[in-house]
């Protein structure tokens, strides 16, 4: 049985990754999950300097999911290089570093600092975080801005890049095409959908930032649709995510066109979720007589 997939020249032992921001740098969940089993660890978004993030409350539960407005708190790329990457090097898994910034220069700074890190296999560029005021999502909601920043980053990146797309757009196909046209090696989607929760007794927003990003099973149908639309619009590989809780969900994304899949908020519900997805995919392949996982990618048209 072959479960390896290839994304932009990088080979993953299986398609299952962690969604950025839901798995720390891998350290926290290594108490639950043998990281060697994962296709890749995708780290929390990192900027050129430490970011303090947003005020609390930063998270709120909603029906079938959660809102978050962490605001990309991160210790900066230097700490990532000194602490997190060495930790991850001991594992036989691929490492994708998620990069955030407020200006094009911010992104370029991080990308350059990571360029000689052999422990970093790919870079995922987060231009779709709805929780920071400047930069972030602005790049991710306009095809022209996305094209420009992708092009600029691509000039400086040594590793293949994955542009991470926002679902908060009219046409995901257009955004996917812009990323591809500018040279992105792959795309990932979806980031969270902007949402809001109001506490009707306290008459306040449940999240200090007012809005937060919606994730979890609630968004899965939107994510599957967008992965389908995006993967039909471009020829670069797609990494799908949004509400994946189990192998059935992951397979749904792959049938829709995803080459890789990531587990996000459901790690919080089930810290073993990534392992369960990997084992469930193998079971499905056996039951369905599928020898090569690549045969199911985009198989439902």
């Amino acid at each position, binding site marked *: 049985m072959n479960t390896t997939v290839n994304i932009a020249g990088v080979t993953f032992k299986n398609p299952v990754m962690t969604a950025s921001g839901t798995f720390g740098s891998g350290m926290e969940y290594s108490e639950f999950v043998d990281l060697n089993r994962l296709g890749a660890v995708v780290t929390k978004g990192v900027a050129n300097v430490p970011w*303090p*993030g947003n005020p609390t409350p930063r*998270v709120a539960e909603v029906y*079938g999911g*959660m809102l978050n407005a962490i605001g990309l*708190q991160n*210790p900066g790329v230097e700490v990532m290089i000194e602490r997190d990457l060495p930790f991850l090097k001991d594992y036989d898994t691929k490492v994708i570093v998620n990069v955030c910034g407020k200006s094009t220069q911010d992104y370029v700074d991080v990308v350059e600092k990571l360029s000689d890190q052999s422990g970093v296999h790919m870079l995922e560029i987060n231009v779709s975080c709805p929780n920071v005021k400047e930069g972030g999502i602005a790049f991710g909601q306009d095809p022209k801005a996305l094209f420009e920043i992708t092009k600029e980053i691509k000039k400086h990146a040594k590793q293949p890049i994955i542009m991470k797309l926002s679902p908060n757009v009219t046409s995901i196909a257009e955004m996917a095409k812009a990323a591809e046209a500018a040279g992105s090696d792959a795309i990932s989607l979806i980031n969270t959908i902007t949402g809001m929760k109001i506490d009707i007794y306290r008459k306040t927003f449940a999240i200090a930032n007012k809005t937060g990003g919606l994730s979890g099973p609630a968004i899965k149908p939107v994510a599957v649709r967008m992965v389908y639309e995006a993967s039909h619009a471009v020829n670069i590989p797609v990494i799908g995510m949004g509400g994946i809780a189990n192998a059935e969900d992951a397979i749904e994304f792959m049938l829709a066109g995803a080459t890789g899949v990531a587990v996000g908020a459901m790690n*919080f519900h089930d810290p073993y979720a990534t392992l369960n997805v990997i084992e469930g995919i193998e079971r499905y392949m056996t039951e369905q007589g599928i020898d090569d996982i690549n045969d199911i990618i985009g198989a439902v048209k």
Partner: protein
Amino acid sequence: MAKKKKIAAEVIAQDVIAEGIMDLRLKTDLAEDANPGQFIGIYPKNKSTLLPRPISICGYDKNEGTLRIVYRIAGSGTAEFALYRPGNHVDILGILGNGFPTDKAQGKRVLIIGGGIGVPPLLGLAKELKEGLGENFAEDITMVMGYRNSETFLADEFRNYGNLFIATEDGSVGTKGNVIDACRENKIEADVIFSCGPMPMLRGVAAYAKEISAKAYISLEERMACGVGACLGCICKTKNVDEHSHVNNARICTDGPVFDADDLEL
């Protein structure tokens, strides 16, 4: 430290101990690793709610492998928990958090201050400080617990471990007012304070600690998603740059919930 786990625990007993306050005993291997001030995450079975509910450990029996938690019915998750009967199983995540630094109590005059639903974790602490197998015995233990009214849950059990003062909002028992009023009224002195309760009370405790030149260790609450330090949802503001985050934020779920009050921007 043992690895964190998500496992099924068995309900051994559950009782109502005050209006809307439940006392639940669970059989689980996690009891082995429990310390006062730590907590577990409890997963409701209701499939529309996916996040674990953080609930402090009120007590534990390592020989029998049981955990005790005392919680208020606050919303849909705790309302569901309140329906569990002996023999039911529930998924829990733990052991979470750092717990109270009981070593700071050694040979010291300890003051334990709790308010509302911050009271339960302090019972396990008082017991450990009085009877624990470590060398952390306090010289003496004074306790001040604040309640809304005469439903002073757990008060009788606290009395086993030292001198207990009570404050009630409606004045029905002890001092009428809050826990700080009770501390003042009784001119309580101490070297070390351990506390858990609502944020305004904790601010009062930190101030009172300054007045009496005591060290204060306080247990904080915040909305949590992962409970294990990964999501950065549950931070509190620190005076200095935090070692892990490299900004002035610490994670309550892993770096806390108990902090040296001097380290915090309250």
